């Protein structure tokens, strides 16, 4: 399978950081062999919405791009937190994009077949709350027809929905792809099953990863709703009871499971909202290891990793990833933190 940047996802690399500080560089296909019988892998099965909508700010007649960034209310799924941009295409880096036209509460936006109303301006010129006119089914049909996945300037060709749905994607709930899940395929899940490594999923509304604006980025991640199925909660609790490890595929899984954690390491099933950041001093009650992309200091995803590894180790990892030319973007390589296994013995460890 060819990646959007022309590379082959099957040739992706996996950097393993073990709990004792050992590190090594493996082909990502080795993921199928890394965990122990009894371990439970938990992924985010959210599918990605076509959350980028180009259209017109009706009062000014000027072009606007709306990126849906968060659900305002699960009971009214036509209302969103959104980020607005002015003229410019996906090839322009987000940080270089023009500001949106001056917005006021009540302004109408025409976004292809959809019409939306600005309900509230938030305390940043790009940030607003909006509501689509019509019911949820009408809105979904309009998104399906006119919406595009949020694009990345580093990807030369426009991304289609099939590019941003992971193989396990089940329900459209995320605004950007839960990209750690691109490391999974059905062959890997089959290999885990054969080795008695468990696999289950939560659904978490992974939000925008970066807006290009440092002030806005410092507020990420926004509050993100999630759903933990009964069976997933039962499997996590059973794994913790028997002393098996919980491996999260992606930071969104860490957020959901830790938000739903009880002090004893069991998790509450059902709907919830993950609020706040996980950082250095956040105790991890559920998750033992995390597979994620290559993140840089300052990103909220990097901050979350400080709950898994101390700063000295993270600095060593960053240096090694740079030296080994690991690819940092959403469709790039993977890093597995806090693996309790001798995966690096015999590999080219550092």
């Amino acid at each position, binding site marked *: 399978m060819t990646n959007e940047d022309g590379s082959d996802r099957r040739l992706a690399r996996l950097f393993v950081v073990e709990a004792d500080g050992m590190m090594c560089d493996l082909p990502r296909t080795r993921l199928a062999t890394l965990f122990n019988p009894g371990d439970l892998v938990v992924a985010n*099965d959210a*599918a990605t*919405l*076509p959350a980028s909508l180009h259209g017109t700010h009706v009062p000014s007649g000027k072009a606007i791009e709306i990126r849906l960034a968060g*659900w305002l209310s*699960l009971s009214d*799924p036509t209302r969103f937190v959104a980020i607005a941009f002015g003229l410019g295409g996906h090839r322009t880096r987000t940080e270089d994009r023009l500001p949106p036209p001056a917005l006021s509460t009540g302004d109408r936006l025409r976004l292809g077949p959809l019409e939306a109303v600005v309900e509230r301006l938030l305390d940043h010129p790009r940030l607003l709350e909006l509501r689509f006119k019509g019911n*949820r*089914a009408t809105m*979904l*049909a309009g*998104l*399906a*027809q006119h919406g595009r996945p949020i694009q990345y300037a580093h990807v030369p060709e426009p991304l*289609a*929905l*099939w590019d941003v*749905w*992971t*193989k*396990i*994607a*089940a*329900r*459209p*709930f995320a605004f950007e792809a839960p990209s750690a899940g691109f490391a999974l395929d*059905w062959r890997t*899940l*089959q290999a885990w*099953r054969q080795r008695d490594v468990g696999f*289950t*999923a939560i*659904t978490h509304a992974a939000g925008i990863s970066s807006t290009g604006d440092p002030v806005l980025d410092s507020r990420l991640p926004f509050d993100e*709703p999630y*759903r933990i*199925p*009964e*069976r*997933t909660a039962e499997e996590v609790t059973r794994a913790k009871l028997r002393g098996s490890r919980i491996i999260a595929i992606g930071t969104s899984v860490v957020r959901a499971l830790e938000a739903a954690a009880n002090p004893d390491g069991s998790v509450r099933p*059902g*709907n919830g909202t993950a609020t706040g950041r996980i950082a250095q001093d956040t105790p991890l009650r559920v998750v033992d290891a995390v597979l994620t992309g290559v993140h840089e200091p300052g990103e909220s995803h990097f901050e979350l990793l400080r709950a898994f590894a101390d700063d000295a180790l993270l600095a060593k990892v960053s240096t090694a990833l740079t030296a080994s030319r690991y690819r940092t973007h959403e469709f790039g390589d993977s890093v597995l933190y806090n693996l309790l296994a001798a995966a690096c013995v015999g590999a080219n460890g550092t």
Partner: protein
Amino acid sequence: MQTNIDFQGLRVAVTGGTSGLGLALVRQLTGKGARVAFVARTAANVERVAAETGAHGIVADIGKKDDIYPIAMQVTANLEGVDVLINNASSLGPVPLALLADTECEELEAALAVNLLGAFRLTKALFGALAASAREGRGALVINISSDAAVNAYPDWGAYGASKAALSHLTAIWDEEAKADGIRLLTLDPGDMDTPLHALALPDADRSSLKAPELAAAEIIEKMLNALPARTALPAGGLV
């Protein structure tokens, strides 16, 4: 007659849902209390069937690659997941039916695009949702509608028959592969039915000798229930 508990909360997607067998399936499934989304190409027909049955109508063409993920998105968002996919939409190939030597390459491609690739693509796009349903103990099933033309070498039915034969074999292999994920795939042959597709193929057929699509739909629904785990009260989907 099945009790309603079997259908309460059951989430079914049907392609080709505005005529013939597909329409009968949408009517019967909604009538029994299932949550149904259906796909068809013509907006006016989709609106009519949606208004009549209360099912979610999606205007799209199974034969077009670009339509598949937007379909999957609307199915899984409107139904909050999916337990059963019925790939029913079919293309006859050349109309009127033609000998293979008279069949244009494009006509064969069109039949394959809907009957084989369309079913493959939509199943693949919904595979994650089906696996989620299986993991949650709800069962997950794909029913691919085939024909005896997939088995018998009927002259004039080359494009249609070859595409359905390929679909049957794809289904059998995929069923073996996906069993461990808890997803079952079946091919069902509803028999010769009195449908618009049949009239298109054989305009002079004696309609009294043909099966009513309502009867075929009832048989398929029974087989669908037999292939799903015994249902108690299903957990609600719960997300948006």
